[in-house]
């Protein structure tokens, strides 16, 4: 589904990704962990098409196509979804209108008819249950005045509505209490299917108790320095990242 080869990216003059290699197949859950500043969020942003970053080397193939060629909206339409670490508050834009516009632009791209008001509301109500979201939030401006938990829930709700093939969760667990975390993880789990894949970017192992990964990768200084199964995450939780840094020094 996703093949990242030797990906280098920088922001302004600072090189952040220094040769990432990663392959994600349908049905898999990959966790990307690493200390702060290792490049985790950059990787998520580059995949979603944030224009602040410049890709200097390497390639990303998604469903057989060059992902980096595509505009952010075209990536979204072809099934890539980024759940933001810090969802943006947009005053004056109603949550409902925003969602309806997004859904219908995606449907149009897929050659489907736009949903009418009734069909849209029906679908929305169903998806809201997945993340136990309060309907009153839909009447408000997009993310405006939402609590941290509400914002993250709203991200997963949008993911449910847009039904992506590849979901990238960027530190979705940060700032969540355990109840909110369970709800968010539960939502993600319900959306899993054999033809979809998930990349979970996180600093902490906690989320991975609820979204169980098939693979865990450690990103450090812009490279994946270690990969393993879910036990690697447990090891990191227990011992921190220093032992990996030590290991790396030893090999150098």
């Amino acid at each position: 589904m996703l093949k990242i080869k030797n990906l280098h990216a920088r922001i302004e003059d600072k090189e952040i990704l220094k040769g990432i290699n990663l392959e994600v197949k349908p049905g898999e859950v990959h966790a990307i962990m690493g200390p702060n500043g290792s490049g985790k969020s950059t990787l998520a942003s580059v995949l979603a098409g944030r224009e602040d970053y410049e890709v200097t080397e390497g390639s990303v193939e998604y469903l057989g196509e060059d992902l980096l060629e595509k505009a952010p909206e075209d990536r979204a339409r072809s099934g890539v979804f980024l759940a933001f670490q810090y969802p943006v508050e947009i005053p004056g834009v109603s949550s409902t209108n925003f969602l309806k516009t997004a859904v219908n632009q995606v449907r149009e791209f897929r050659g489907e008819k736009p949903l009418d008001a009734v069909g849209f509301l029906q679908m929305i109500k169903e998806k809201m249950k997945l993340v136990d979201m309060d309907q009153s939030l839909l009447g408000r401006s997009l993310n405006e005045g939402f609590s941290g938990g509400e914002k993250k829930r709203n991200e997963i709700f949008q993911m449910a509505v847009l039904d992506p093939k590849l979901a990238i969760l960027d530190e979705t667990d940060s700032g969540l209490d355990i109840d909110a975390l369970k709800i968010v993880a539960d939502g993600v789990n319900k959306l899993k299917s054999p033809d979809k894949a998930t990349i979970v970017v996180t600093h902490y192992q906690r989320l991975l108790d609820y979204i169980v990964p098939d693979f865990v990768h450690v990103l450090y200084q812009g490279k994946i320095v270690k990969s393993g199964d879910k036990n690697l995450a447990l090891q990191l939780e227990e011992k921190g990242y220093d032992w990996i840094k030590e290991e790396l020094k030893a090999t150098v």
Partner: protein
Amino acid sequence: MSTKSAKAELENIFNTHFEDFEKSLNGLSEKSTHEIRKSALDSLNHIGFPGNKHEEYKYTPLTRQLQKNFRFERFASTGKLKLEDLKDVPFYNENAHIVVLENGVVNTELSKVNGAQGLGIMPLKEAFKQNNEALANNFGRHLFAEKDAFAALNTAFAENGAYIHIERNTSVEKPIVLLYITTGSGELTYHPRNLIVAEENCEVNVIESFTSLNKGNAFINQSSEIVVEKNARFNYFKLQNESESTYHIDNTQVVQHRDSLFNAYTFTFDGALIRNNLNIALEEEHCEAHMYGLYLTHGKTHVDNHTVVDHKEPNSFSNEIYKGIVNDHSKGVFNGKIFVRQPAQKTNAFQSNKNILLSDNATVNTKPQLEIWADDVKCSHGCTTGQLDEESLFYLRSRGISLQKARNILLHAFASDVLEHVSISFLKEHVEYLIHKELD
């Protein structure tokens, strides 16, 4: 020709026009009214038209534009406007008191003013003839002709426009709509003048809308005096969507008395050059004034909003939000003055001006100006000029929304807080339509 002598020439032209104007009045005008006109002409001759370096006009070279584009050879004429011309004019068919002004002159046949208890609407000319107490007490008493050359010019030629009087305790149910329609071919000039007196405890909505059906350059030099008496509630809307060869200057002086509420909305779209001077004097305690402005400009349109709110007594509140979306080679100017006089303790006064530039060639000059002599006040001001927020754009796009649509959504959101308080649905819908047209 040097600017100075050109300026003087412009003054000469209007002095000659004034002589013709006096003759046309044929001695019929009330003496006291005419004294006000003559003294305004003296003021104009004394202060002169603003030169290029004039502090209040330095970003808006109105005098130069008038010299360049007008010859001022004749007065605007009327009589061209027909009923069928009005079918596409916004609001003409709305459920409202409609006053049609052709080149500044009230056309009573095409107007549709339904009798309403406590509401008096008539051509200013007619009111001059009657010279009732409210007119005599207010005409020319509030607008400071000695400070602004264009206000002086308007006062000197004051004859046509609307006189509106709302008696105490009257709630005027339907909005009053003044439809200004410019007709004719070739260049023309007119000086519409309004006086609106809203007595104690009354409630009224007044809309002014400007439409061009003419060909050629038009100079509209408009002034209004609005008196808002005790505990009156007044909503005042101005919609300027004119031809690309219309030069429009508006001086509106509002005077508020105790416990009154005044909301001003100024929506500006097309025109060659538009300058609005909106001055609100809070004469007594516990007044509340809101000024909302929205300008969406493209081409070479130049829009300048100068506002003054003058807190003279304690415990009043004023709030101002002006927003601009400026495209192509167009230009936005904002100057907002807040005065808080020494007695005006416990004043709350807020102001903000935000602009989005959509093109590298668009410009905005914005200047807040606070002058505060009282010490126990809350005042704030802020202005921003920039592009659309990149992070918000990316967020929308990352959900599958096209770049163009995403920009559109954000621009509408930017404009929305100016529009959301508009309670008259036909006006709100029309402004929304104009915003769509401008942005799509």
